[in-house]
C-alpha cells in the first residue's frame, strides 16, 4: 500500500513538473529560458518513464532529449541571437481566443479523463487475450529484439523520414544562383 501511494505521489510530482515546464516553455519571453523550461519538461517525462517501469526509455529521454537535442536547440537559439525585444508581441485578440479555447479543451480533457477512470471496463471484457509482460520488461533486451525483428520495417522507414528531413532542409536553404 505504501509503495502504491508513493508511486502515485511521485507520478503526480513528475507530471506536474512536465506540465509546468511545458507551459513555461510556451509562455516565457526569453527564448533561452524557454529552452531551459523544456529541459525541465523532458526531465519530468523521464521520471514518468522510470516510474512506469520503462527504465531504458527513461534513460534515453535524459541522455538524448535533455542532454543532446535541447543543447542543440540552445546552440541554435544563441546562434540566431534572439532577444525578447526582437519578438513581436502576440496579438491580443488571438491570445484571448487562444486562451479561451485552451481552457475549454482542458476542461473537456480533464472531465473525460475523470469519468473514464470511473467507467473503464475490465481488460478481459474487451480484449480476447491479455498478454503478460515480457521477461525483463522495460530494459534493453526485449526492446532490441522488437526493434530488429517485428519493428524492423517501421524502424527503417523512420530513417527515410530523417533522410527526407535532411534532403528537404538542404533544398529549402539553397540560394538562387546569381547568373
Amino acid at each position: 500500500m505504501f509503495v502504491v501511494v508513493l508511486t502515485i505521489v511521485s507520478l503526480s510530482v513528475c507530471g506536474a513538473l512536465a506540465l509546468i515546464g511545458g507551459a513555461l516553455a510556451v509562455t516565457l519571453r526569453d527564448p533561452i529560458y524557454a529552452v531551459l523550461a523544456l529541459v525541465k519538461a523532458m526531465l519530468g517525462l523521464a521520471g514518468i518513464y522510470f516510474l512506469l517501469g520503462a527504465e531504458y526509455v527513461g534513460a534515453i529521454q535524459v541522455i538524448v532529449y535533455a542532454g543532446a537535442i535541447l543543447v542543440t536547440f540552445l546552440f541554435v537559439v544563441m546562434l540566431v541571437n534572439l532577444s525578447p525585444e526582437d519578438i513581436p508581441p502576440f496579438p491580443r485578440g488571438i491570445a484571448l481566443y487562444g486562451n479561451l479555447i485552451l481552457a475549454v479543451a482542458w476542461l473537456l480533457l480533464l472531465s473525460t479523463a475523470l469519468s473514464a477512470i470511473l467507467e473503464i471496463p475490465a481488460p478481459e471484457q474487451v480484449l480476447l487475450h491479455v498478454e503478460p509482460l515480457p521477461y525483463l520488461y522495460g530494459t534493453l533486451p526485449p526492446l532490441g529484439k522488437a526493434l530488429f525483428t517485428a519493428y524492423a520495417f517501421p524502424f527503417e522507414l523512420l530513417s527515410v523520414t530523417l533522410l527526407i528531413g535532411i534532403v528537404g532542409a538542404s533544398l529549402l536553404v539553397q540560394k538562387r544562383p546569381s547568373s
Partner: protein
Amino acid sequence: MNNYMGILSAGWLIIGGALVLIAGTFQKVRRRIPELSIAIGGGATLLNGLLAWFYPLPKSGFFGMVWGGGIYSFLAAGVMLAITVGLSFLWRSHREGGYRGWEAFPLTLFIGAALSTLPASNHLLLSVVALETVSLGAYVLTGLSWENRYAPEAAVKYFLLGAVGFAFLLLGISYLYGLTGTLYLHHLWPMRWTAWHGNSLFALAMVLIAIGILFKLSIFPFHWWAPDVYGGATPSSAGLVVALGKLNAAFLAGVFLHYIHIPSDWLMGLASIAAISSLYGNLGALGQTSIQRMLGYSSIAHGSYILLGLVSGPEGRLQAWGYTLVYALTSTLTFGLLSLRAEPMEYKSLRGLGYNQPGYALAVAICLASLSGMPPLIGFFAKYGIFTAAFRAGYWLPSIVALIGALIGYFYYWRPIAWMYQAGEEIPIRMPALALSTGVLVGLGLLPMALWGWLDYLYGLAGLFLPRP
C-alpha cells in the same frame, strides 16, 4: 514467415532514390537526374501493377507488419502513377528554371516509397510513420519555387498546421494503444468494440484521431489552411501536394474504419460534416479569380466526397479509395498543365490558350471536366460510385446536400475553359502537351467498369468486405 512482397515496391523506390541522390553529386550525371527519377517512378508503377496482376491474393510479410500484392499493390500502382506524372511536370519547370535544386526528384521517390507502404501497413505505428514521411516531403514540395513569393509562406503554414493535425492523430492513437494494448490491425479487428461504445476515453481517442484525419483531408471545420497552402504552393508541384494529402488521409481513414468498429451515429455525424464541407468548398471556389486558389477550395470539396465514401461501409470505402486515386491523378495533371508560369495565375491569363495551343488547351479542358464530373470521363464514374454507396448506406440527406455542392462545381470548373477560348495574346509553352497522360485519363474514363471491376475483385480477395465477427 518473411514474405518480401510487401516491401518490394518501397525497397525499389528507397534504393533507387538513394542511388539518384548519390548520382546527383557527380556534375556529369546531374543533368540526367529528372529522367532517371521518372524512369524509377515508372518502374515502380509497372512493378506494382504486375504484382497486383499476378498475386491477386495479398500476403502479409515482414513479421506481419506489412501486406503485399493484391489490392495493396494496386493502390501503390495508382499512387506511383500520380507521382510519376507529378515528377514529369517538375522536370518541365526544373528545365525552365526558377525552382530549387535537383534534390526534389529523389525526395519525391522517397515520398512514393512511404505512400505505397501506407495502405499496406498492418500496424498503426507503421501507418503513422509512413503518413508523417509523406507529409514531411509534401511540406518541402510546397515551397520549391523561387519565383513565387507566396511559396515559402505556404510551406511554413502547411508545416505548422500539418504538425498540429499530426499531433492530434498521434495523441489519439496513443490513447487507443492505452485502451487496447496493441496496434496490430489484425488484433484490433476481432475486439468486442461495443464494450467501449459510450466510454468517454474511447470517445476521446476517436475524436482526436478524427480531428487528425479531418485536418489531413481538409474537411470543413479544419480546412482553413487549404486555400492558403494550395493557393500559394509552387505551381508545378501543387497538384502533387494536394494528391499526397488526400491519399494519406484516405488510406489511413479507410484502414481505420475497416478495423475499428465506430458507432453508427458517429458515422452519420461525419457524413453531415462531409455534406457541409462540400457546400463550403464549392461555394468558396465560386468566388475565386486565381486558378490555384480555386483548385485549393475545390480540394476541400473533393475531401468531403472522399469522407462521404469512407463512412459508407465497406462498399463506400472501396469507392472512396478509387475516387482518391482518380482525384490524385487528375489533380496532379490539372495543376501541372496549368502551371504555365512559376507564380500562381489568374483566370484571365489563360486567355487565348485555346487558339494558340489547341492540343494543350484540350488536355486542360478534359482534366477540368473530369474534376467537375462530366459523364464520359473517369471523374464522373468515381463520383457516381461514391454517391451510390452513400445512398445505399442510408445517408440520404448528406448525399443530396453534397450532390448539390458537386453541381455548383460545374460552374467554376468550366470558367477557366471559357477563358481559354477567348481571344488573347500568345502564351509560350515550351513543352508539347502531355497528351499521353490525358489520353490515359480519357481511356480510363471509357473503360471504368474494367478498372473498377478489378479494384472490386482485389478488394474482396483481401477480405475487406467481410462482416464484423
